């Protein structure tokens, strides 16, 4: 009797939860479906949900019309490249703060975090003018530098929390055995830190991929990533929903997959360790 009641409750809860979940997910599903419609079907009233003539022509048209691959290439190069460089700078910093802390380490960490709180518009004018004078506008190096700096505090912070979890005893044992500082880092610390570094990178790539303040303001065509490419659909000509959907699906699919893998790190990274 009691069991029956709980099962009944569970089924009801499941139905409700799925209804809410589908509602939240629906715009993404709808974009995906629309990307396989003809432009006329995409625009039709009443909307066609599943029974339309499926076509992949939009995907080809997006490429031939506006060189989609260039933007995709920029997105990949910028989000991976910028964060690899940031990682090279962040790992030593996080290492030293986690294992050789000084009195000022905590203040330093907080200061680094505080740079992340600065709104972009606060420094937009000087950065724009400097970039213009150095010919870094619409330049991969320029926007890559900005993306690197955007993520540096988060990288350091996340790596720091991961490194902190590595037991100090192991390091001390290595030191007792006469391991030098470098071999300590390479042979003891790095293997233990790889999972933390990997998930930190995952989150950083997601954040760079979706960054849409600096990419929209500092790039136009040559160095523009997908955020800027999609923005060009805000001034449309004629019927464009199916093409917009195809371009959007391509732009969000890879990051959606990465994102699903990194939910836990997301919580940790975006709350700066305040919620785990």
């Amino acid at each position, binding site marked *: 009797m009691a069991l029956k009641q709980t099962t009944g409750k569970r089924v009801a809860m499941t139905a409700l939860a799925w209804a809410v979940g589908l509602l*939240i997910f629906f715009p993404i599903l709808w974009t995906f479906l629309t990307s396989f419609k003809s432009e006329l079907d995409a625009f039709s*009233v009443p909307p066609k949900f599943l029974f339309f003539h499926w076509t992949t022509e939009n995907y080809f048209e997006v490429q031939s019309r506006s060189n989609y691959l260039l933007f995709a290439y920029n997105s990949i190069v910028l989000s991976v490249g910028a964060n690899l460089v940031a990682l090279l700078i962040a790992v030593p910093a996080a290492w030293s703060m986690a294992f050789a802390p*000084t009195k000022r380490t905590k203040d330093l960490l907080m200061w680094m975090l505080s740079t992340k709180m600065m709104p972009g518009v606060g420094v937009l*004018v000087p950065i724009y003018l400097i970039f213009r004078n150095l010919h870094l506008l619409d330049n991969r190096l320029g926007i890559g530098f900005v993306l690197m700096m955007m993520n540096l505090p988060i990288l350091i912070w996340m790596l720091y929390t991961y490194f902190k979890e590595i037991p100090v005893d192991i390091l001390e044992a290595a030191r007792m055995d006469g391991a030098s500082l470098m071999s300590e880092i390479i042979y003891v610390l790095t293997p233990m830190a790889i999972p933390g570094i990997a998930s930190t990178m995952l989150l950083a790539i997601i954040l760079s991929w979706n960054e*849409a303040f600096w990419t929209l303001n500092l790039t136009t065509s040559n160095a523009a990533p997908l955020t800027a490419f999609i*923005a060009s659909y805000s001034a449309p000509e004629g019927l464009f929903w199916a093409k917009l959907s195809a371009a959007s699906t391509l732009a969000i699919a890879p990051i959606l997959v990465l994102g699903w893998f990194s939910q836990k790190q997301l919580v940790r990274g975006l709350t700066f360790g305040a919620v785990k």
Partner: protein
Amino acid sequence: MATQQTTIAGRILVAPSVILLFAWMIVPLLTTLYFSTLRYSLLDPDNISFVALQNYSYFLTDPNFFTALVNTLILVGWVLVISVGGGILVALLMDQPIFGQSILRLMVIAPFFVMPTVSALVWKNMMMNPVSGLFAWIAKSLGLPAIDWFTNWPMLSVIIIVSWQWLPFASLIMLTALQSLDEEQKEAASLDGARQLPFFFYIVLPHIARAITVVILIETIFLLSVFAEILVTTSGGPGNATTNIAFLVYKQALLDFDVGGASAGGIVAVILANIVAFFLMRIVGRNLES
């Protein structure tokens, strides 16, 4: 503890980050501060003069500024109410013993990974278009007149889009916090026949209170500088209806080429963000100590 060798090595290793972050934030910020005291237009770059606080008095008494400030607060406020309120409800629902929980979780978190320009344009066109959008179709099916969202309710439209982006974030954080609530505590409460509402208010809510605070503060920092969603949907319009401070500064700098005025606006935005950041940093800092 730490040997002298590691302390010195530590300084050297941390130096590049510190120097870069300093160059990236403090130097431009001081430059912005300096520009904000100048009459400096890119249209007339040879004619630069010191005007002290005139840009601020101009910016702060500009009716556009007041509108933008109100718009910023409306946007931040409503998105917070919807995403945090909705996020708690969604998290509570997802925390129940339901079938297919992990797949459902993926679906709920998904919008957070959609880039701002995509979500804004998908919503503006395929959802909210007054002729062929889904909302128009639903309204017509129910015998109601279709709403021309971006003409008649521009700010509400932006609020809906931004809320859709942030509700998953709030849900995910709340769910994480909820799941750390002791199972035994939950079971004990249900065996004692504790009713749902008191259980929620006396046990669950205090448990997730810190997660709620953190979500509110982090979202506020991001929401104060919502930009792309406005740029690709309304460009701040109609009139000034959806211009927030971030967008106003952008307009002044890159469309009107008024370096001095835009810099003053930028400083105002920094001050606003810092008020929120102050509280967030205190919570994070307390956490660092423990």
